[in-house]
């Protein structure tokens, strides 16, 4: 059972391929991170999947509903745009009530859900204030509440935390993390640290094309270039850097960075590096205080893949 499935989904504006032959498979009950730089095609994809834009070609299903069937689709999804817009003259309670009425939720149930949601997004005290004076963080939380009022199967969040301050970002990420118990979350972001922190599965898109889609840990395993981190005693610094810089031109070395007693060596072959560097260090009798393989960050994977795509 898939939450989102796309088959050769494309959207073209004139000569620009905003989304190009996109094939995605998003399982249910996960937080799916849709990554890419600004203008990569993330928002267009979400607009296609929510029925706000029509595909030029290809097809897609959300919670088993074809995206072309907008009415049926709208019951199954929740949507938070990058910059949620509200009727400024309404209060949060009134706005959620209006959305609840659109979903034909009964009066009693509506009241119950609104109060619950205002509690969850921490807007209970501001429930009767006009939205007009709300901060960006408050608007984002209200946006999340309105996206959840129909208890959607799939929740689309477009850059939900990108424009928030650290505190607001933390609050929103924690809220999203708790959502996967009941919903599938399809979240676009260009902030890789956010995706790394909360997503289970990731897709990277560049210039409208899907570059990779997999489980987060699989990606980290598959695409990361190993980084060896070594640290020596302060008295060995000179010998240490001299020994390591000697490897600079080796074909299996991508990059060497040495700062004081710490060196980071970015390598193409883990086995060769481990064997060669370790024996060289032993021969020079440098006392190492650290010798470890560093877990690759999503950022390094992202940059590598985007770089490869641009070199094609």
């Amino acid at each position, binding site marked *: 059972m898939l939450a989102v499935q796309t088959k050769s989904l494309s959207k073209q504006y004139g000569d620009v391929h905003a989304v190009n032959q996109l094939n995605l498979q998003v399982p249910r009950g996960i937080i799916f991170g849709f990554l890419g730089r600004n203008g990569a095609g993330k928002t267009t994809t979400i*607009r296609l999947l*929510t*029925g*706000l*834009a*029509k595909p030029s070609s290809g097809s897609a299903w959300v919670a088993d509903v074809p995206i072309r069937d907008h*009415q049926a689709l*709208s*019951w199954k*999804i929740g*949507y938070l*745009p990058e*910059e*949620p*817009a*509200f*009727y400024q*003259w*309404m209060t949060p309670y*009134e706005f959620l009530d*209006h*959305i609840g*009425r*659109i*979903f*034909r939720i009964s009066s009693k149930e509506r009241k119950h859900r609104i109060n619950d949601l205002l509690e969850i997004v921490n807007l209970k005290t501001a429930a009767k204030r006009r939205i007009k004076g709300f901060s960006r963080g408050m608007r984002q939380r209200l946006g999340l509440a*309105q996206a959840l009022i*129909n208890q959607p199967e799939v929740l689309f969040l477009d850059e939900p935390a990108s424009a928030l301050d650290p505190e607001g970002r933390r609050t929103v990420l924690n809220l999203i993390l708790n959502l996967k118990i009941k919903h599938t979350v399809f979240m676009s972001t260009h902030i890789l640290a956010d995706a790394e922190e909360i997503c289970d599965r990731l897709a990277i898109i560049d210039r409208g094309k899907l570059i990779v889609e997999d489980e987060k840990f699989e990606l980290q395993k598959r695409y990361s270039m190993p980084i060896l981190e070594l640290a020596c005693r302060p008295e060995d610094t000179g010998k240490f850097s001299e020994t390591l810089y000697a490897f600079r031109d080796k074909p299996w070395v991508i990059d060497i960075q040495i700062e004081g007693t710490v060196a980071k060596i970015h390598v193409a072959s883990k086995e060769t590096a481990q064997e060669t560097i370790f024996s060289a260090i032993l021969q020079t009798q440098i006392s190492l205080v650290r010798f470890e393989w560093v877990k690759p960050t999503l950022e390094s994977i992202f940059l590598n893949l985007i770089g490869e795509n641009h070199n094609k």
Partner: protein
Amino acid sequence: MIFFTSLRKEFLESLRRERLLIILSVFLVFGLTSPLLAKYTPEILKLLPETEAIASIIPEPTLLDSVNQFVKNISQFGFFLAILLTMGSVSQEKEKGTASMVLVKPLPRSVFLFSKFIALSLAFLISLLLTAVGAFYYSNLLFTTSDFSAWLWMAILLWLIITVYVALTLLFSTLFRSQPAAAGVSFGVMILFSLLGSLPTFEKYLPDRLSTWAINLFTGGGISGWIALLVSLGIIALSLLSAWLIFRKQELE
């Protein structure tokens, strides 16, 4: 049911953003001063120095002067209000992003559009009826007793002309992204109608003919405007249908 949800929002907006209050205030001010101005203009002229000669040739004001003044004021201000209050109804929601926020939900675009038309039209109807009641009272006080049903039908005919501009501006607000563009084209149509209206061949077909009909309800002059009524209803229906056909195909940001 869903239509009433959308209409409820539109009415709430009319109240909160004081649209209803603006329409009612303008109509009351210019509608109620019509009988007063008709009655007292000659009196005011008499008070001015060296205007005795002019004042003496002005005939004694009648109920018809009051009605004429009323129709002229209400239709002029009504057109302007119809255009100014409708120009942003769809374009602004598209531009600000509220349209996509609610239309991604199970709210049909037809409902979104027509509820706006109904809410605005009803705001004009309520304001016009109240103003007509006030003008009827003042006219009876200042002139001869008139038939209330004539005032009522006059208000409805004026409302129909105003509604034509509400429907047209709603269409342009759907078609264009910017409010000034929607207003500009609507004003263009208004000018076109008034130019065509000055030609006798076209006059009887245009919405403005309804105001002549409205005045004739008091004189019993036998001038009616059934063709203009049908044309007006046709323009309204066609504008709404076109707006819907355009809006249902539009992609929202």
